């Protein structure tokens, strides 16, 4: 299906090498509208919403940021390392959000997830988790699983 031309312009910004070397859509052949729709349904199925997921993720990043690059333990379960790099990357949705190049690595006993500040912004504001195969694709189900490990412990 043809998509809104504005969404098409955003999709063009997302291709490999336009704003970032890896691109935001990876090997995904679906249109941006379909990618957004699929993750919307996944988040809906998890019984949560984009903003709630992003808020939880952001709390890990904030905890790690204070340590200036040194790994810290959050909630006695997660190892969090935050690294800051030079420069900023604009949000491909063209809303003048310049994300700082901050990478957060969160490891639980069973899994490790990475995300950037741009991921946080795109999840929060646009419900976008990147296309399948993209370097910084972060599956909403994986985030939920990571967060559940703590609940399981209690």
């Amino acid at each position, binding site marked *: *299906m*043809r*998509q*809104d*031309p*504005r969404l098409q*312009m955003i999709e063009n910004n997302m291709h490999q090498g336009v704003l970032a070397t890896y691109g935001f859509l990876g090997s995904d052949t679906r249109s941006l*509208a379909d990618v957004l*729709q699929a993750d*919307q*349904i996944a988040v*809906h*199925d998890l019984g949560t919403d984009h903003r709630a997921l992003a808020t939880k993720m952001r709390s890990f990043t904030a905890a790690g940021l204070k340590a200036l690059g040194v790994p810290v333990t959050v909630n006695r379960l997660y190892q969090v390392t935050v690294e800051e790099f030079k420069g900023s990357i604009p949000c491909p949705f063209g809303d003048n959000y310049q994300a700082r190049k901050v990478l957060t690595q969160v490891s639980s006993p069973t899994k490790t997830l990475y995300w950037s500040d741009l991921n946080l912004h795109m999840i929060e504001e646009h419900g976008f988790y990147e296309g399948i195969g993209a370097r910084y694709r972060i599956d909403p189900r994986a985030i939920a699983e990571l967060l559940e490990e703590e609940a399981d412990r209690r």
Partner: protein
Amino acid sequence: MDGGPAISPIILLFAAIFTSNMVLANFLGMCSFISVSSEYKTASGLGKAVSLVMIVTTVINWLVYRFIVVPLGLDYLRYIIFIVVIAATVQIIEMAMDRYLPDLYMKLGIFLPLITVNCSILGISLFMIIRDYSLVQSLFFGLGSGLGWWLAISALAAIREKIAKNKLPLGLEGPAITFIITGIIALAFIGFSGIFIIQ
């Protein structure tokens, strides 16, 4: 042929808006109708652009048909000819707008390339040939159809904006509910039928 059927152009105008609405009665131009109707502002912009292109291309296609296609006996080529005429016209409109009406170009510019392949535009040109409209009739028919398309997509987008705030059953999200709404709007438009008969 010059006289066309005995329908007043004004009646044709209203008929094209209400009783034989391009999208709701003839189901033409559905693609962009469904996919670009999630936001009222965007939808209305597209509607205006479609109206503009419809008026211009109907007139040009009428002239091309009357003075080139018919004399050369190329009636069987009319689909191809209409399509290329529409494509070229949209290109030129885009350039002229950029130069003389930059404000309008900003608002409608991004929709123009999308319109080239909108089947309702081609539909108008074909209807006008099949129904033997005169130039004046074609002009009003094009204008009416454009306004009708604009009305339909604006109505749909306004409803979708309202719905977006509510929770829907999962299977109905997106295109599914849009088709259902379209169907209901079309049913409502049936209420107009019988007022003017043009097809």
